[in-house]
Every structure is written in structure tokens, then in C-alpha cells.
């Protein structure tokens, strides 16, 4: 029942988002445009603007939700978030470097390359060591380095215009999403989510402690490698398209855990579904609040919506 409600909520967000925008379209108009039978303008609005935007948001939200759930399972810490491994910072660095040189079309590739370098570094640093804390320390180090280099790039930005582009990009937005973005982002994120879902059973075993998990046949090295690559695919492809969108990976798994329990086998796919719904919902709000000349960036909004709710849950949980 709870699962059905979750699916309905997520699907409703995606469908509802098709009606949001400066041009008012009726249900019939949207349906016709979706089937390619609307007017030329409506077809373009729905098929080339709103649908790619909604689907890209859903895919990115799903990736962030799944990777947050997997990382919280691996570190056995509810405060772990996708950013903890430094991939958000690495992707941001790649994108900012592309903006520095004015290579706007290469932003996704640059962000993905940044994530790939980050993933390689973290795999190398934490490779032979078994403990989860080594992985977190490696992540914190790589993240701090990437953030410093991002700051350095912005420091030496060639002109104020480029600097403002970088700042806005770092706030995260889906407003320029096109089908080509979805084509880059969706396959990588889906592979990432599948990888993370498949380590769910091992993550559950890990909740008994690393030694017991090893004695039960869990290969910690393999588990960590899949976790790092799966998270890099989800986070890297998301940041590459929409910029830095925070907080979803932290608070979505937390809410799902309260509703559905802490079993990582269920938690990872359910966090993906609700992450998808939540990001599309946040994007709907951002579109409502965005007027001519002003844009409310999605990354800011996800935190603004998420934080009060998260704090409410945290206080409620401590009282119980």
C-alpha cells in the first residue's frame, strides 16, 4: 500500500510538471503534444522542453536518492550523503574549468571526467584497506581538494561574466535540460542505480559488522568498488547536467527508512523512486517561483524544502 502511494506520488509529480510553465496548456493539449499531434508550438513546448526537463529531473533525483541510501548503508551512518565521496565537488570542478575556458558544450563531459578522476583517486587511496572510515577520509580529502581547485579557478576567472556563470551553475538548475542531456544522464544513472541495488543484500549483511560480513562471504573490496563506481555514475551524471543539487541524497533515504524500515535491499530502490519524485516536485516549485528576470535555482530550493522537514523528523525521532 505504502509502495503504491509512493509510485503514484512520483508519477503524479512527473505528469503534473508537464503542465507547469509560462504557457498554460490544457490536459488535452498536453496529451496531444505528447503524441505529436498538437500544434507545432505545443509539440515543441512539451516534447522538447517540459518532458526532457521532467525526465532529467526524475533520473537525477533517482540517482541521488539511491547513492545516498547505499552510502548510508555502507558507512552505517545516517548522515552520509553522495557528496561525502567528493564526486559532487569533482564534477563541479570539471564543469567550472569548462566554463573558465568558455567551452559551454563540453560542461557535461568535463564534469563526468572530473568525477572519473575523483573515483579513480578514491579507488586507489582506499583500495587495499578494508575499513569504511578510510573511504570516508579519502572522500573528504578528494572533496576538499576539488573544492579548493574550484575556488582557485573562480579566483582567476577571466571576467566577471564567466564568474557569475560559474556561481549560477553551482546552484543547480534543470531549466536548460534538453533530450540530449537525458541521453547522456539516463543510461549512466540507470547503470549506477542497478549497481547500487545489486549490492543491497551485501550492505544488509554488513550491518552485522565487517568481520561477520566477511565470514558470510561478502567481499569488502568488491563491495566498495561497486559502491564507488555506482555512486560516481549517479552523482557525476547528475551534476554534469543539472549542477550541484544538494540534500536529496541525505534526507530522502532518511525519510524512506522511517516509513519502510532500514533494510538496504528495499531502501536503495525506494530512495531512487522517491528521489525522482522529490526532485521533480522541487523543480515544479522552482518554476512557480521563477518570474521573468529572476530564477530560483533548484539546488537552493531542494535544501530550503528539505532542511525544515529533515529537522522536524530528527527532533521527532529523538523524542521517541
Amino acid at each position, binding site marked *: 500500500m505504502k509502495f503504491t502511494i509512493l509510485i503514484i506520488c512520483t508519477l503524479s509529480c512527473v505528469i503534473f510538471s508537464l503542465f507547469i510553465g509560462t504557457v498554460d496548456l490544457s490536459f488535452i493539449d498536453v496529451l496531444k503534444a505528447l503524441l505529436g499531434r498538437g500544434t507545432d508550438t505545443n509539440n515543441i513546448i512539451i516534447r522538447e522542453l517540459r518532458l526532457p526537463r521532467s525526465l532529467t529531473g526524475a533520473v537525477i533525483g533517482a540517482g541521488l536518492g539511491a547513492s545516498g541510501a547505499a552510502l548510508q548503508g555502507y558507512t*552505517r551512518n545516517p548522515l552520509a550523503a553522495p557528496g561525502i565521496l567528493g564526486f559532487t565537488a569533482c564534477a563541479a570542478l570539471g564543469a567550472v574549468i569548462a566554463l573558465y575556458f568558455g567551452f559551454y558544450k563540453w560542461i557535461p563531459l568535463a564534469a563526468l571526467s572530473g568525477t572519473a578522476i575523483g573515483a579513480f583517486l578514491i579507488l586507489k587511496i582506499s583500495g587495499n584497506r578494508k575499513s569504511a572510515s578510510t573511504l570516508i577520509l579519502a572522500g573528504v580529502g578528494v572533496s576538499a581538494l576539488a573544492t579548493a581547485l574550484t575556488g582557485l579557478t573562480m579566483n582567476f576567472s577571466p571576467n566577471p561574466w564567466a564568474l557569475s556563470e560559474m556561481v549560477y551553475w553551482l546552484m543547480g538548475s534543470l531549466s536548460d535540460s534538453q533530450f540530449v542531456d537525458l541521453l547522456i544522464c539516463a543510461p549512466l544513472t540507470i547503470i549506477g542505480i542497478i549497481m547500487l*541495488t*545489486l549490492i*543491497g*543484500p551485501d550492505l*544488509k*549483511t554488513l*550491518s*552485522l*559488522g565487517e*568481520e*561477520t*560480513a*566477511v*565470514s*558470510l*562471504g*561478502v*567481499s569488502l573490496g568488491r563491495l566498495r568498488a561497486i559502491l564507488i563506481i555506482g555512486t560516481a555514475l549517479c552523482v557525476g551524471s547528475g551534476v554534469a547536467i543539472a549542477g550541484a543539487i544538494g540534500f536529496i541524497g541525505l534526507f530522502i533515504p532518511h525519510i524512506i527508512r522511517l516509513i519502510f524500515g*532500514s*533494510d538496504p*535491499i528495499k531502501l536503495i530502490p525506494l530512495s531512487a523512486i522517491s528521489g525522482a519524485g522529490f526532485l521533480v516536485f522541487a523543480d515544479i516549485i522552482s518554476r512557480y517561483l521563477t518570474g521573468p528576470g529572476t530564477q530560483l535555482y533548484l539546488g537552493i530550493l531542494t535544501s530550503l524544502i528539505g532542511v525544515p522537514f529533515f529537522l522536524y523528523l530528527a527532533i521527532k525521532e529523538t523524542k521517541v
Partner: protein
Amino acid sequence: MIHINNLLSGYGPCDVIQNISAEGKQGELIALVGANGSGKSTLLKTLAGIITPTSGTINYLGKELAGFSSRKRAKIISYLAQNREAYPSMPVYEIVELGRAPYRGSLGQISSTGKDIIESAMVRTKTQALKDRKFNNLSGGEQARVLLARALAVDAPIILADEPISALDPAFQISMMQALQREAKKGKIVITALHDLSLASQFSSKIWMLKNGKIVAKGVPKKVLNAENLKNTFQVKLPKGGFKALQLAN
């Protein structure tokens, strides 16, 4: 039959286990005794595949365990860790179910045979009534029984238990030892680290006495737990009249 040959093992550069050779047969309950730091836990962790030995071999039924995949090895050896660090909010049944981890499908599915084995492990450890309770709401004794049920749910021919009765009251200590003894009688090899020499003498069929990473004495309890060995290994005297057997009141 498990054969340990010239085993050297430890953490980092120093070997805690110094050239141990021993063997265990089906139906035996072997008690590992020795002072703190003598290498009992390190030996069990090496046998369980948690620590990779520096040199030496461990063979089960003539096959070397080092050549096995971690999953295949987990089907042969079940390990019960010393600390009870299970996920606090997890229900008891889900913890016991994790004993089937080496056999489950890629999405965590458990076969009907697996479910029967879980049920049987819970019956043997008297944990069925706790099934739906959260692990962190149980008493220390109940937690120990649940983790034993988890170890039995692996249904492996070898069971390793690292001080399974530590921090338990006498009645729970005896019932835990009885449960391990029943497993041995059913044809399993049970190797358990114990600090309580009285329980070791009462329940084990063999004792391996460790000192500084070496087995200094091995054999039946009566032979190993003599005055001289106790003095050399623990710096204690043999109690007058030897070790007395403890029994449950009812």
C-alpha cells in the same frame, strides 16, 4: 576434518599466530583456551577467512580453503564474532536470516529450504518467540542466542565461536555451551574460544591451549588442564578436586 598446517598469521608486520598445526574432526567441540592476547581470536579469524595468513595452509576434507571463493568458504565455516555489533534497529528474524547470506540470490531471495534451516536454527536456540522483536530491545543473553541462531542458520559443517558466553549469566553460559555441544554431537566441528576453564573442561571434547600464539598443549580436557599447564599458561593453581561441573537448576 579440518587440518591446520604450520599457520602463521597476524595483523600487519607481526604474526600473532606462530606456526600452529592442529586438526579437528567431525563431532568434536574444541575449546581454545589461553590468556588474553594469546592468539585465540586471531586463530579463529584466520580460520574464518577474515585475516589472510602469512603462510601455512588450512584444509577442509583435503581441499585447501585459500583456493575457495569467499562465498564458498562461507558455506563451510560459520563464524560467531565476539562483539554483538548487530544493527540495533533490525528485527531478530532478519538478523538470523542473514546466516543464509552465502546462499541467497542476487536480490537477497532465500529458498524455501533456507527458510526451513532458519526456522530450525531458531528452534534450537529457543529464539522463535523473539522473532519480531528489535535486536536492541533484547537482553544480553537473548542477543547472544539470536547471534548463535544466525551462526547456526549458515548450516556450515564447521562452527567457530569467539567467546560466545562472555558477559552472560551462568544459566545463559550453560545453555549456550549446551547448544554448541548439540551441534558437535550432530557431526559438526565446533571450535570455540573460552575463558571459563570449568566450562571448557565440562563441555569440550578437546582443548587447544594457546600461549604467545603457539599451541602449548592439546588433547582431552583432563590431560590438558593439569596443574603444570595451568601454572605455565595462566599462572593459576588447579582448583582442589579439579573443575566441577555446573548444571542448570531445572
